């Protein structure tokens, strides 16, 4: 079980900012995205614009294998605009 955090446009599309999701312990970033889209189909439209932050490190939506621990934070990161 991981904590999924939604920000900016992804929070608007998902309709929430935070939830716990049950996901496989080992999963590629892309597979994780697909799990999340299964729960929130409206997120599909931003697939090409987002990255993940897993335990506060950026991860592209690709084949990188993630090893997740219970309670890990996974954040959906739309294009940033700080400063």
């Amino acid at each position, binding site marked *: 079980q991981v904590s999924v*955090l939604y*920000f*900016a446009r992804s929070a608007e599309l998902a309709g929430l900012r935070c939830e716990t999701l049950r996901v496989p312990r080992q999963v590629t970033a892309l597979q994780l995205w697909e799990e999340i889209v299964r729960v929130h189909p409206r997120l599909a439209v931003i697939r090409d614009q987002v990255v993940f*932050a897993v335990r506060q490190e950026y991860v592209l939506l690709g084949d990188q294998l993630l090893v997740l621990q219970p309670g890990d934070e996974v*954040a959906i990161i*739309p294009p*940033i*605009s*700080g*400063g």
Partner: protein
Amino acid sequence: MDESEDVPKDFIKLKSEKLSVDEVSELVVSPYCGAVSLFIGTTRNNFEGKKVIHLEYEAYTSMAESEIKKICRDVRQKWPSIKHIAVHHRLGVVPITEASVIIAVSSPHRAESLEAVTYCINTLKASVPIWKKEIYEDKYPWKENKECFWANSEK
């Protein structure tokens, strides 16, 4: 008593209150430094011809702080003479012309702090998980249903 050696410090703050240039620059002032360089990011009133009413910022706060810490660490590697670094970013609503970010860096001589401030803001914009939403002027933002019996009294 030994005067504090003025150990280099990073001052990172994300807050919803109005930012203060005085406060941020005073954080980095040091008797060992002849230069304090500052960057202030302020909100503009137009974007692509649309009039902006105000900006709203949100952040992945814990990660934003850790990414800013990484920027500070990189700054100190690139410019070892840098003394103190302060980065204050405002969250929530920021009215036009008010500051959304203030960065201050001190160093013994001016070249390093000037370069470091530029590096800080450029890297912040590239890597720190903060988002801004622009609220545009609309003719009248509230919608009205045509079913409403007390409006639409054109008869």
